[in-house]
């Protein structure tokens, strides 16, 4: 899909004197990573289908500072955070939705101490709410008979106790939701958190994403569902490591819903 999308910015909204229902925080992965861009677009199609008045910050968005903070660079984190808080407060932002659990955690939990308090939702929570309110409807037909296993992102699940929203959304697909042995609060990390995404893993016997990939493949899934662009990358790599990329796909919850709803 390469049609261009009309995505309004906060600046444009403000110029027209309107207030969007929600700010969509795209995040760096969602903006720049080729794979994650597809997730971003799938989520935008959902927002459009649900007629959600949303806006993005566009060029005014910068990294939340999550990888800097977790790598120990508190100065850099706060430089980013205070800058973002200024922009967000400047626009009077109240509600934020993001498809990245790391942005979600930082915006929701760590910005209040720096003067930025918002109602922050992960996109799986937002989609779940749209489904419950009947603002979007999906037919799961295409997924009938498929097996889906969901990988809990640490920063959404164990970090913020959200295990149900992504699962409730996936159940709309009429597929069989199968759980890995290590799931929910016992879920295994994809290996990318804590700024590991941006460095080589320390030496060891194997890679974390291979361990997790093996476990996911052990459920004999057709689809491995993820809710985080970094988990997505790590798990895709894990599936490739076992030469299963022809049989098993790794997809974000938003992509699956966009697909099911033919959005």
């Amino acid at each position, binding site marked *: 899909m390469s049609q261009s999308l009309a995505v309004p910015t906060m600046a444009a909204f403000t110029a027209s004197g309107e207030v969007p229902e929600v700010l969509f925080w795209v995040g760096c992965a*969602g903006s720049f990573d080729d794979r994650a861009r597809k997730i971003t677009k799938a989520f935008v199609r959902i927002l459009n289908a649900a007629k959600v008045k949303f806006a993005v910050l566009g060029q005014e968005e910068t990294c939340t500072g999550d990888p800097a903070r977790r*790598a120990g660079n508190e100065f850099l984190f*706060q430089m980013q955070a*205070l800058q973002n808080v200024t922009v967000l407060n400047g626009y009077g932002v109240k509600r934020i939705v993001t498809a990245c659990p790391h942005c979600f955690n930082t915006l929701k939990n760590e910005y209040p101490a720096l003067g930025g308090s918002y109602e922050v939702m992960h996109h799986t929570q937002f989609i779940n709410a749209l489904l419950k309110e009947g603002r979007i409807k999906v037919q799961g037909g295409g997924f009938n008979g498929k097996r889906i296993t969901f990988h809990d992102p640490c920063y959404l699940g*164990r970090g913020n106790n959200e295990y149900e929203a992504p699962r409730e959304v996936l159940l709309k697909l009429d597929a069989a939701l199968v759980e890995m042995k290590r799931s929910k609060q*016992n879920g295994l990390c994809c290996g990318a958190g*804590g700024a590991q995404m941006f460095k080589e893993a320390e030496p*060891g016997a194997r890679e974390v994403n291979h361990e997790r990939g093996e476990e996911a493949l052990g459920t004999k899934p057709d689809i491995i569902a993820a809710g985080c662009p970094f988990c997505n990358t790590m798990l895709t790599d894990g599936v490739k490591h076992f030469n299963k990329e022809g049989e098993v796909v790794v997809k974000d919850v938003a992509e699956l819903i966009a697909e099911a709803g033919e959005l």
Partner: protein
Amino acid sequence: MIAQVVFGILLIAAIALFARNLGRIGRNIHLGKPEAINDRKAERWSTMARVALGQSKMVVRPVAGIMHSLIYAGFIIINLEVLEIFIDGLFGTHRIGAFLGGFYDFLIGSFEILAIGVLLACIVFIARRAIIQLPRFHKPEMKGWPSKDAMIILVTEIVLMCAFLTMNAADFVLQGLGAEHYTQAGSFPVSAAIASTLNLSNLQPSTLITMERTAWWLHIVGILGFLNYLVVSKHLHILLAFPNVWYSKLAPRTEFANMPRITGEVKSMIDPSVPPPDPAPARTVAGAEVPERFGAKDVFDLSWKSLMDAYSCTECGRCTSECPANLTGKLLSPRKIMMDTRDRLEEVGEAIDAKGKWEDDGQSLHSRISEEELWACTTCNACTQACPVNIDPVSIIMEMRRYKVMEESSTRPALTSMFNNVENNGAPWAFGADRRMEWTNS
């Protein structure tokens, strides 16, 4: 009378020694940075009731959980018996609680059944370490003292329970014989069976009295000894688990604490009209000036709560067995982080005791915990989820990373690139803000 005096002296000495060592541990914990933790009190009490008192995280692994609950219940309830032993020992009475009648029978009966439960659990625990060899008990950090410590605790508990049951068995027979001083009291479901199996009634009353007295003394001296062993071993968790859980992190696991001093510095960097904050004053700790640092170089720079965590750790290794880095053969073991922190804190404490004040010894936490360990953490918090007493190794790892990066500028090269990208491009990759909307037409 001599026995009473001996008992009294022993009791006072044991309690005094225990109090002194406990005070020393308290002093060591307060070598850490002050941190006010007294918010959300109702939630704290309920967390403590659930996690520490209710053992809710222990039973996640049912075998260990049930066995541990037996030992735990045995410990708490049999201590009621110890209260009676104290009174009998000091006043030369025998089974002073007997006036409780039927309730006393019920108590003694329950103690005996629990004692058998504790024995069984200790044997299973020894088997898990020595025969089944569960991998988490045989990680590199468990060599030497840590595994010996565990065995000493288990064997001592077995000895204590055997002494308790022997004492009761001899007592039961003596009561039946109507021996002087051994008035009829209590219900002995387990020890009566032991007495009849071993035909104790064939023994002379004087032999039985020797047996009862020996077991009585062994039991109480063992308990007093054990009390003092607590403070030098991982067994301290039986005391610290409760406050440690009360003070545990209630914020979302992945929320990292803010560094307010940096906020001031950054604000003044962004806006030159904001004056930079006053330099943080050095703290005086154990007679030495400890400069305010970014992150943790040594135990002084960690929150006192992290130091309490270190003393609360039972080295059970549930954290390490869930840690993705450790699972994939990397050097990091969250349990080792806790053990290293405690070992360093003990080392510092001993130096302070020896010299009366702290003098820099050229060592630090980083002498024990390597960069490779620190950089292997994914901050996934599997360790904090797994810990039965809500210990938080991630916060120690994070404070040490902060020190490495902000005080020593020492990090992994790829992270330096990431920092540069975030600083210059506002993204961890080398893409400028002008490309942020490209996804709309890609």
